[in-house]
């Protein structure tokens, strides 16, 4: 089966606005290299995870795929069609196919709209069906996401965080998309509710044959829901592979450090931790060679000068490290 999404060499540099003072001092603007040459593909019906620390470019990748940002370089194709050069008008049919669920449901919904209006809005924008058909579709979506039709006339603030996230999911599914970006969909929720939303997302994926791009910084969540994952560091993918394999046998020192930083829910087990020293380098001025070398415990001479490329190992896992 062909890939649903193919991303190659995707790059986004943000140029900061210069003040007059900067120009007078002739300091040339250094772009923020948010995403710096990323390649991956997402297969139909797959949940593809993107993990990494905040500021590594996860959300920017998602926004580039959704065409919220225009890439500086690189290609994105959706169902075999390159979508980068399409105009807004030409993009319209594709926007129907790709939707997004955000982290914070309270800020992603208009507090003055009723639930029915929130979920109906995509249908209104795309002029789908008549008034009655749209209403029925909203009721159908409410039931699909575990809410009831009685909720339709209420406002978002009347719901708990978990229920608000269900409303956001219902809205994302209104147009019957093939591909949904889930940007930290459970990070703002309590553990007891996280499970409910993840179960719902997995059920919907099966029922509607959805593909997800699942962005999270919680590795246990990523391992649970994702079929494959990519680990990002400073705008680059450092490791990519089957999520079970990556978790059982992480190859990149960064992945190893990330995994060992997860707190252990068993008391009195003193695990050896690889604590990353220092801070995430400035993405305006990334380190030469391997970007991780400033915080890596096993780096050697070569890592300071030569940038490692993503190479595929025999088990299908890919890793960008000289020592792997």
């Amino acid at each position, binding site marked *: 089966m062909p890939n649903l999404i193919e991303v190659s060499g995707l790059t986004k540099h943000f140029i900061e606005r210069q003040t007059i003072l900067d120009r007078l001092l002739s300091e040339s603007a250094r772009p923020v290299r948010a995403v710096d040459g990323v390649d991956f593909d997402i297969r139909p019906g797959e949940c593809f995870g993107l993990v990494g*620390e*905040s*500021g590594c470019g996860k959300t920017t990748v998602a926004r580039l795929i959704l065409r919220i940002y225009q890439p500086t370089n690189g290609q994105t194709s959706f169902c075999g069609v390159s979508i980068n050069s399409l105009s807004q008008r030409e993009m319209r049919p594709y926007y129907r196919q790709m939707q997004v669920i955000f982290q914070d449901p309270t800020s992603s919904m208009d507090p003055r709209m009723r639930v029915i209006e929130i979920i109906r809005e995509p249908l209104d924008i795309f002029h789908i069906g008549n008034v009655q058909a749209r209403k029925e579709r909203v009721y159908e979506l409410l039931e699909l996401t575990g809410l009831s039709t009685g909720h339709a006339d209420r406002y978002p603030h009347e719901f*708990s*965080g*978990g*229920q608000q996230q269900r409303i956001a999911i219902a809205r994302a599914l209104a147009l019957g998309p093939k591909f949904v970006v889930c940007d930290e969909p459970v990070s703002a929720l*309590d*553990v*007891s*509710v*996280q*499970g*409910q939303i*993840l*179960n719902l997302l*997995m059920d919907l994926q099966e029922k509607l044959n959805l593909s997800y791009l699942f962005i999270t*910084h*919680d*590795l*246990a*969540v990523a*391992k*649970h829901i994702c079929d494959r994952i990519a680990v990002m560091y400073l705008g680059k993918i450092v490791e990519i592979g089957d999520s079970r394999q990556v*978790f059982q046998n992480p190859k990149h020192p960064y992945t190893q*450090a*990330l*995994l*060992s*930083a*997860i*707190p*252990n*829910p*068993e*008391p*009195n087990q003193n695990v050896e*931790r690889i*604590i*990353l020293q*220092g*801070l*995430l380098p400035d993405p305006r001025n990334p380190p030469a060679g391997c970007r991780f070398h400033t915080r890596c415990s096993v780096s050697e001479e070569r890592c300071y000068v030569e940038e490692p490329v993503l190479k595929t190992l025999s088990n299908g896992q890919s890793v960008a490290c000289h020592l792997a």
Partner: protein
Amino acid sequence: MGRVNTHTLLNVKNLEVEFLTDRGVVKALNKVDLVVRRGETVGLVGESGAGKSVLGRSIMQLLSHPGRVCGGEIFWNGEDLLKRSDKLMCELRSGSIAMIFQDPMTALNPLKKIKDQLLEAILLHQNVRRKQAREIIIRRLQDVELPQPEKMMENYPHQLSGGMRQRVVIALALVNDPELIIADEPTTSLDVTIQAQILGLLKSLQQENNLSIIMITHNMAVVAETCSRVNVMYAGRIVESGETVTLFKKPVHPYTQALLRSIIRLDNESRRLETIPGVMPDLINVPSGCAFHPRCSESFSLCVEKNPDLLGIDHNHLAACHLRGDYAKLN
């Protein structure tokens, strides 16, 4: 976990807090007991709305209007804090008791340099000259492992990353050599790598200074890593309390059991995740009897009628459930 001795630093007894709102009285804390000994870390866990933060804030007497303490006592080294005047309370706050908040961006003043914020706290509580205060600042910034403290303290909060800001907040809590730190979700807004750094830092600072910490969190794994004892809160009450190891190995209250089951573990094999059905009740309208009964799979007629007291199950292990311990024996 530090040298825990038997000296009781903080003893909260029967604390009751309510918020008078337009919709009615919110019973945020209902007869809560909490003991913190010198040198130990005590956890407060539960879902949002359980009353964890309210308990932390009531100890500091930082409840905002319309919240008020309407019953109980808070003993600090034997003295009831609720009887202290506002002025004397001010001396205690960020002096002997300090607080670390969840969001370091809102806990710091965006218009003041790091240096000035730390200086303000020191000059308020200690009779030192500016030069000495500066030395304290540098020492504390070094303690929290901030690189180049002399340079760093000239920055404004927005110039630092989230993890660095949280370190500044911790330094701010430490400048007056507190005996107790109330850490309200100190790592919730941080990445796992930074979380590991900050938790490690708190642990080592605690050992060096023989600090007591109240760790407020919703993350059971953070509790397992840091706390020697833990209190599980639900709907404004403590429903189970005990040594961390016992509570994790042999949880007694159905709510604690459900919380532990719903942790998403790395070694989780089953596809379906365990959840707790329903949501935390609205505290204006707490269910009759045991507040957890509508979500409890084991509830029976008595649970609807009578709220169980917090009773001993075992040594240092208390639970409030009709099915357990002394209750089970009585029935």
